[in-house]
């Protein structure tokens, strides 16, 4: 042995080019230390850049979207003129239903005009259009429904909060200024002055807007009444379907592939394909859903059931990959221990391996769900971009009713012209992020809860 190595150069203690004292640092060590310092600096820079981007994102979204959670309402006495709402004077709801919503604008307009007169509010250049456009189109519809539901209101003076138009609302959110009002066809300086006067006297108030969270979408002309209710229900239904389908199928697939399947060419191909499926663009799943679930199976368009099925297909690879990683992370000694006392393969998996893999599986599932919650592209292909103003009913029937979804609603609102929808879209993003945050917190909580040492 010594013969073979004797010709090679051998390290001789103390023969290097370095200074002999440990107290002086040689050039080589200095270079290595500098390289390490540089690397650390790069790391800190990268983290700082990421944090900055995140902070900027959150800041802009909160700045633009937080105002969507507040809405301006007018509180002035409204006189329900019998001559307008019940021309025949018989208080018969069937007859009164013939009075169209537009007619109720008369009530709002006249009540406002009366209020200005009796309170002596002087606004220069105020015309009928300013009064008519002061309230939301939704306000007259709401009033009509209220009167039809309770005909005794006719002839009364009621004092309820009335939704103002998006321009009036914008005046209190900095979106509409006196200068921009002058240039805006949908508002005027006079309307601006009136709004300010009413606000000063306390008859115009901005309060928390539950309708934004629970309400339905509304048309292009009334952004002030647009809400997320249908989108939230639609998203919830889809998540329900994804959870119910993707979790058991994904976990069963993983367990079979990881613990039972023979390792051969077929399972290799399946494995490669699952990994590839995780990287398939989501819009492709949308086309698949359109072709398979709508055209072949004949499920309705815009329905959460189709969206849920498409998102299930999309989420499955994520769940399978996470679950397999979690199963693989369970030490083989646990399997040996269980098999060694005579447990069957299935008992080994279900009594010992699965409980230990649970935190990883749950985390993977929730991450997959969160991903599905934010997915837009495939839903657009199966018709979930539709304009839906009625709530889907309770499941299971509701799964087949038209619905929207949160990210699609965001997309939808950003497409619309009125600047008030921009605020709505940002607000919807905040709601979406809140759901994401909740799901991730749940994932962390579950992981902590189920985590066990071995």
């Amino acid at each position: 042995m010594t013969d073979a190595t004797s010709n090679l150069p051998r390290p001789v203690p103390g023969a290097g080019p370095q200074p002999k004292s440990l107290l002086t640092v040689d050039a080589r060590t200095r270079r290595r230390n500098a390289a390490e310092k540089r690397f650390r600096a790069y790391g800190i820079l990268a983290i700082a850049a990421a944090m900055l981007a995140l902070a900027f994102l959150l800041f802009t979204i909160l700045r633009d979207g937080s105002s969507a959670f507040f809405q301006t309402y007018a509180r002035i006495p409204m006189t329900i003129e019998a001559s307008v709402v019940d021309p025949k004077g018989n208080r018969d709801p069937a007859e009164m239903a013939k009075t169209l919503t537009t007619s109720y604008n008369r009530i709002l307009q006249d009540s406002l005009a009366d209020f200005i007169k009796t309170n002596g509010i002087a606004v220069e250049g105020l015309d009928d259009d300013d009064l008519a456009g002061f309230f939301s189109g939704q306000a007259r519809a709401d009033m009509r429904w209220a009167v039809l539901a309770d005909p005794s209101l006719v002839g009364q003076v009621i004092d309820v909060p009335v939704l103002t138009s998006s321009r009036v609302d914008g005046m209190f959110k900095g979106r509409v200024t006196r200068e921009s009002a002058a240039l805006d066809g949908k508002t005027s300086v006079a309307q601006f002055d009136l709004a300010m006067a009413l606000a000063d006297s306390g008859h115009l108030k901005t309060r928390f807007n539950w309708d934004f969270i629970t309400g339905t979408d509304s048309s292009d002309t009334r952004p002030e009444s647009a809400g997320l209710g249908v989108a939230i229900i639609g998203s919830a239904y889809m998540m329900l379907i994804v959870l119910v389908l993707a979790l058991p199928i994904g976990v069963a697939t993983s367990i079979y592939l990881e613990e039972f399947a023979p390792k051969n060419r077929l399972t290799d191909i399946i494995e490669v394909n699952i990994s590839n499926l995780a990287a398939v663009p989501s819009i492709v799943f949308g086309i698949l859903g359109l072709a398979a679930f709508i055209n072949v199976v004949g499920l309705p368009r815009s329905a959460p059931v189709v969206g849920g099925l498409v998102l299930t297909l999309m989420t499955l690879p994520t769940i399978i990959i996470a679950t397999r990683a979690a199963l693989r992370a369970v030490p083989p000694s646990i399997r040996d221990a269980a098999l060694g006392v005579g447990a069957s393969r299935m008992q080994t998996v279900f009594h010992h391996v699965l409980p230990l893999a649970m935190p990883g599986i749950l985390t993977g599932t929730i991450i997959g769900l969160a991903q599905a919650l934010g997915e837009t592209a495939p839903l657009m292909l199966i018709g979930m971009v539709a304009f839906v103003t009625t709530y889907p009913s309770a499941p299971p029937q509701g799964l087949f009713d038209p619905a929207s979804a949160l990210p699609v609603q965001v997309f939808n609102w950003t497409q619309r012209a009125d600047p008030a929808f921009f605020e709505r879209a940002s607000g919807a993003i905040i709601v979406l992020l809140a759901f994401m945050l909740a799901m991730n917190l749940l994932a962390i909580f579950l992981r902590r809860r189920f985590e066990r040492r071995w």
Partner: protein
Amino acid sequence: MNNMYLAERTVHTQAQPIKFRCSDVQVWYGEKHALKDVSVDLQDKTVTAFIGPSGCGKSTFLRCLNRMNDTIPVARVTGQMLLDGDDIYDRRVDPVQLRARVGMVFQKPNPFPKSIYDNVAYGPKIHGLARNKAELDGVVEQALRGAALWDEVKDRLHESGTGLSGGQQQRLCIARAVATAPEVLLMDEPCSALDPIATAQVEELIDELREQFSVVIVTHSMQQAARVSQKTAFFHLGHLVEYGSTDDIFTRPQDPRTESYISGRIG
């Protein structure tokens, strides 16, 4: 090596009936021929030690005895292994039933991340060895006593098994294996992860277990083989080189390879 100890031990050695009769056992891992023509008869109520250098096939052979090699997809076993006359590799044999009769203790203590009680009760539960809670309690206590662990853990049966010390964990694993009332107990280097004191405790335990079970132990330590076993088998490069009473192997080895190994020249 403590030859006095050896001499003292031979007093206990006596002819016991054959428990495992193995003939012409061959094992392949894929293309690798890991075990060649092994024929050996293992006695009941005897500690048999398998010794040999790393990679000699002693653990492989041990894992054949309760078909743990089934879990390795590329492993292939031929030959005959008769447990009380039944071929354990017969197609009709369910390895699960076999493993209830041939228990195993592994190199690294591997308690389940559950309570001490659940660790021991798991085997009896899945094999239906206890009809009710009281009976199960009895089985658990007996197993823990059998593993010389009862006094140390009786007040904390519902604490986690992973919280015990290494030696206690290994004795817990022995209790777990004993609880299913096996006939043969396989131990794959049970003391290699333990300190000397824990090792001594486990060795003492192995000697007690001999009264009820046929114990087969794989060990890297020749001293340990000499201390605990009555029979020793020396494996080298996949061959069973020599098998005989521990006394003979260590004092009068027949094969030059055995002699080289026990005197430290190979291995």
